[in-house]
């Protein structure tokens, strides 16, 4: 089975209000899409202040199947710069990612699917040498809802094309 298959249902745009690692309120926007000719999954993540003036944290990650069959990825973070990421085994409907940065930190990112249109996002990081994270470790978290286009009566468009003639 293509290891990306469990996450193909997440393709789309997600948004929500949450809490940054500092405890400040944050607005999160995440987009999952297919790239590289449909062979890789891109995750673009932005956490901003509620006024949309400051990007607290931006992450772009690409997940793809490694030659040995495992799902791995590359990531760029506006805080941690570039690093490689691994998918850690977890329950169905969970994407748990971890990676070690060149700056000596370990990053943890988790998306939990609550239903078809709701994800719960959490992320934290700590120095590689620090003790494993506990429940009191500061983390960013946000419930994310799938963004749907607003339904409205469309304004009249151009006239329909005449039917093709033989």
């Amino acid at each position, binding site marked *: 089975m293509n290891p990306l298959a469990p996450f193909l249902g997440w393709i789309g745009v997600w948004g929500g209000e949450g809490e940054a690692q500092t405890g400040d309120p944050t607005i999160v926007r995440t987009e999952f899409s297919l790239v590289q*000719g449909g062979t*890789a999954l891109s995750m673009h993540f932005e956490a901003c202040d509620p006024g949309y003036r400051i990007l607290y944290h931006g992450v772009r990650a690409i997940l793809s199947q490694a030659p040995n069959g495992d799902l791995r990825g*590359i990531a760029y973070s506006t805080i941690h710069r570039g690093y490689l990421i691994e998918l850690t085994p977890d329950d169905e409907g969970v994407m748990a990612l971890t990676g070690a940065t060149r700056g000596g930190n370990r990053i943890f990112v988790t998306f939990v699917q609550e239903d078809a249109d709701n994800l719960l996002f959490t992320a934290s990081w700590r120095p590689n040498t620090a003790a494993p994270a506990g429940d009191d470790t500061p983390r960013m978290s946000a419930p994310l809802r799938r963004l749907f286009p607003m339904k409205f009566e469309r304004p009249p468009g151009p006239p329909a094309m005449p039917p093709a003639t033989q």
Partner: protein
Amino acid sequence: MRSALLKRFAGWIGSWSGPVQLPEGRDGVMQLDITPIFEGDALEVGAIMTDQTGQVLIGRGIGFWSLERDGRVCCVMYGGSVGFTELLESPDDPDALALSGPLGDGRTLTVMYSQNDGGLQLTSSTSEGYTGSVTVRNITQLRRRAESEIPPL
């Protein structure tokens, strides 16, 4: 304000394509896209190679370029045939970018971009050990993709 990364690679941003010969001798086409992300904090560099019909995907790779504290480019990347690795810039001439890093099997991957005659040449090779043999994977002369001239209606 443009980032140092954007200032250095402003002339490379965009979409490039060109013929590529694969190690098996097959001819193909490479498309390379260099796109700034997060206001030029990093560049996303993605390549796909297809056969000449454009219908069969025969190779792919993608990476993020960013600057280290010492000004060198660091690239985290994935290649369909080589897997995942981190490449670091080796000093070269200012119009070129040479990146190299270890592959999981002990080989070293080197990717070289150089600007010439308005185009971009991309060479990638693998080597074994410090004195081992070098295998050139591909050399591609890329041209900036241009919109075709569509006559006005």
